[in-house]
């Protein structure tokens, strides 16, 4: 699942015929001044300026300013660019025209097991969240498109009447086409409003989640996906992502500041059980990590170095189930190199390492890990006869 910022999200909607307000995304106040000279709407309409970053609660942070004229928008942009919020530096501002309106509505399309679901409500903004029962749904099988009759019925069921019912049906139809054609997993417009100037329905705010796996068939996805947890990726995280994109198999790494138990387990499934075990034991995770699919040893080595560089860690959990085809000796070779490098750099002082693993060449791999004891590592190695997460219990025993 890949989140897309408002700018490119609205771009995709516009591509599929959905009315969106005029907008520009700028990286400096000067750029906005120049654009203001070129675009009439920026001189004639009231404007909204918002920090164009993956940040929650922008309103509270003062990163959304409404009712501006161009000069005020330039000033707001100047103020927002470069502001530091947590780990994110605001580098872009989206400036759009305000659309005067009275009523607000809601429309979304989401992925379901069977296919998709179109959601429509004749209330919008924060009102829809407190009146979720007013949201009406149309379920569609995968491969099926909604008929205009179905869409009109949905619109009418949601309480739209007269010409507006037809307009909302059209709007929902376009939302579905955009969703389906762009391999979206979630599209939400809240609010949808009636533009007073021409009576057309306009999408004022968009949430767009795309299927990152489908990128190969969308050459026009020329935008970066945004981090999904309200902060930007760290340098180490991005380095591991860069490695991940190059290799067969995978390596994953997400930092969790403040934790003291570092994770270096194998497998997308087992890694979560290991994290669960740490939390269940009252431990504090310092990161999430995972390697799988028989990755090359150098990739695991990079991952290991990042894990060893986490500040304030007391234990490293090198866990893993019984691998199907990941070569234990080879991947452990990468981990061992990473450990040695970290130790050479003065890291891992007082850190205990806990190992449990099975799979192809498990004996050789586990023996190599055990041999690290002779090099002065505080390492405890267990084989398949020790249940999966018991090393976590041992590590966190008080």
């Amino acid at each position: 699942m890949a989140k897309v910022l408002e700018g490119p999200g609205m771009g995709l909607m516009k591509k599929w015929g959905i009315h969106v307000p005029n907008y520009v995304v700028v990286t400096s106040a000067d750029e906005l001044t120049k654009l203001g000279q070129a675009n009439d709407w920026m001189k004639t309409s009231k404007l909204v300026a918002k920090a164009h970053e993956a940040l929650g609660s922008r309103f509270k942070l003062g990163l959304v300013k409404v009712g501006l004229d161009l000069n005020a928008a330039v000033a707001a942009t100047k103020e927002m660019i470069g502001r530091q919020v947590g780990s994110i530096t605001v580098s872009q501002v989206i400036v759009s025209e305000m659309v005067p309106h009275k009523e607000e509505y809601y429309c979304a399309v989401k992925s379901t097991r069977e296919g998709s679901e179109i959601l429509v409500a004749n209330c919008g903004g924060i009102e829809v969240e407190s009146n979720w029962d007013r949201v009406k749904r149309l379920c569609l099988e995968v491969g099926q498109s909604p008929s205009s009759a179905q869409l009109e019925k949905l619109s009418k069921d949601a309480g739209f009447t007269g010409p507006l019912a037809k307009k909302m049906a059209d709007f929902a139809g376009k939302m579905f086409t955009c969703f389906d054609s762009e391999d979206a997993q979630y599209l939400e417009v809240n609010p949808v409003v009636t533009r007073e100037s021409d009576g057309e329905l306009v999408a004022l705010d968009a949430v767009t989640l795309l299927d990152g796996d489908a990128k190969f068939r969308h050459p026009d996805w020329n935008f970066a996906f945004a981090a999904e947890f309200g902060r930007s990726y760290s340098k180490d995280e991005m380095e591991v992502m860069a490695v991940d994109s190059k290799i067969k198999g995978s390596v994953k790494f997400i930092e969790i500041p403040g934790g003291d138990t570092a994770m270096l387990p194998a497998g997308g499934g087992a890694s979560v059980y290991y994290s669960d075990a740490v939390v269940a034991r009252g431990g504090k995770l310092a990161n999430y990590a995972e390697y799988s699919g028989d990755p090359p040893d150098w990739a695991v080595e990079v991952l290991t170095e990042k894990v060893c560089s986490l500040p304030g860690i007391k234990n490293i959990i090198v866990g893993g189930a019984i691998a199907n085809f990941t070569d234990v000796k080879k991947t452990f070779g990468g981990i061992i190199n990473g450990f040695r490098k970290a130790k050479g750099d003065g890291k891992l002082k007082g850190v205990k390492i806990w190992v449990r693993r099975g799979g192809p060449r498990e004996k050789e791999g586990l023996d190599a890990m055990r041999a690290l004891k002779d090099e002065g590592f505080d390492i405890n190695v267990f084989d398949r006869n020790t249940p999966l997460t018991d090393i976590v219990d041992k590590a966190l025993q008080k």
Partner: protein
Amino acid sequence: MSILANKDTRVVIQGGAAGVNAARRMAEFCYLIKRPLTVEAFVYPPDAGKTNEVPYGSGLIAIPIYKTIAEATKNHPAINTSLVYIGADRAMKGGMEALDDPNIKVVSMITEGVPEKDAKLLGAHARKLGKVFNGPSSIGIISAGACRLGVIGGAFDNLVLSKLYREGSFGVITKSGGLSNEIIWICSQFADGITTAIGIGGDAYPGTDYVSYLEMFENDPQTKAVVIVGEMGGDLEERAAEWYGAKKRRVKLIGVVSGFCQESLPKGMKFGHAGAKEGMKGEGSARSKSDALKKSGAIVPPTFGALGPAIKEAYQELLKSGQVKEPVEPAVLPKLPKSVEEAMKADEVMVAPLIRTTISDDRGDEPCYDGYPASELINKGYEIPHVIGLLWDKRLISKQEAEIIKRIMMLSADHGPCVSGAYATILAACAGIGLSQAVAAGLIMIGPRFGGAVTDAGRWFKYAVDNKMTVDEFLAYMKKNVGPVPGIGHRVKSLRNPDKRVKELVGYVKSLNIKTPCLDFALAVEQVTAVKKDNLILNVDGTMAAVLVDLGFPVDSLNGFFILSRTIGLIGHWVDQKRQDSRLIRLFDYLVNYAAPKRREVPPLK
């Protein structure tokens, strides 16, 4: 009994290298359970018409590769299952092709990163046709004692340790590939093992979910209990719970769910499999899944670690109620034949080597010349002549000797374009011949009349010195037994027009304080022969030969010094012609003396 994969399963694998690797793993399992290989064909258009070799026991089985599924099933009508090992961008097309084939009933896809929409379309298409689409991202399916689809089950040793050679009583369904193996292992240690284990893949919308497989297990009398390993995200576990709670089921359901850690992690953080994502309002959380399973009557151990004991307890109950009997283990199991390398490592076989070498060894992280690592030689200041010494004479020569060899090579690196070797290389270069062949053409010229006299000269000078012959005795011996003295005589050089190379080399060697009996003898020979005829001087071959014999190089290696040095020149000539983009050349008529008979009539053929 088992589900999905059984003794009648015959397989086509769609894909290249990863598919061949899966076939190897499947062959190991077939060998363990003493059944023929289940893989009958591959579909991989780039290699269509060729075969893939799959090791089975100590032999190799050639499996044909086809362009399409239709061709594969036409030639192998027993095929009823396809395994998809093709890239995410082409996986849907491949999966659809397999589903649309009337012979194929089960399609399992290992491909990761398949777009969600494609996976849903494949699943829907399979349901419409009444077939099974398993995956994407599935590690495979294994039925103990019957059939393995994919690499699930791991290495051969693990198949044996997990008792996959015979049926147990537990069904397994997991999203995670690694954990499928873990659960199979646990079932074999805490209970009697598995019937069938299925990896359904960790994507958000697996083609076939827990419920469909639970239904199949419910209808398989051999399966007495099913273990499911869930994770947060989606509603598959809730649906499984709903199925289990809906009515009295014959099978016991044991389930664990991962993702409790999410409750104390940053919101929105993505981890684990693609499908592991919590929905809005807590739906799909590990807790809600776990609670749903508990409510349905399933056995839900509090942690993954408690799963083993829970499985054991369920098994003991089954034993007590007489629903299962203690399994009988086979007395002997086939052992996977070792490779020659492995067997040698274990001191189980002795192999008579085919060749023997005494000069170099490349088995470490770098080549060793006569035992010395190349990098160490470089870092301690040794040079090319020392490497020659090590590889040709197995000794570390002195700095002085190295300097002599260096000078010999510099003096004989090239001798202009007109000599046989260079001319042959140039001729070949002009004909568009590649470097190695053109240089070889030049090297072929090295023989008794061109450059190839070094060895012979060395041999006879050494013979004379070893036998303490006088110059006269030597010349008489040569005249009687050998002919002209190799190393003596030059086509154009003479006493009055001496070869500067010889002067240079002799001068240098004589300036050193070393014993040079061979060189001294050769110079004495020259004194006599040059008097007889002006051009019977010690030539560069003879000088090199005498000096190298004095340095102790074996006689048979001597031509090598000329070959090696001259190769530098030959390469230069080839590059030179190439750089000039030289055109094809041929001799001019006027450079040929046409001494053949005049044109005449051909008589009738008799």
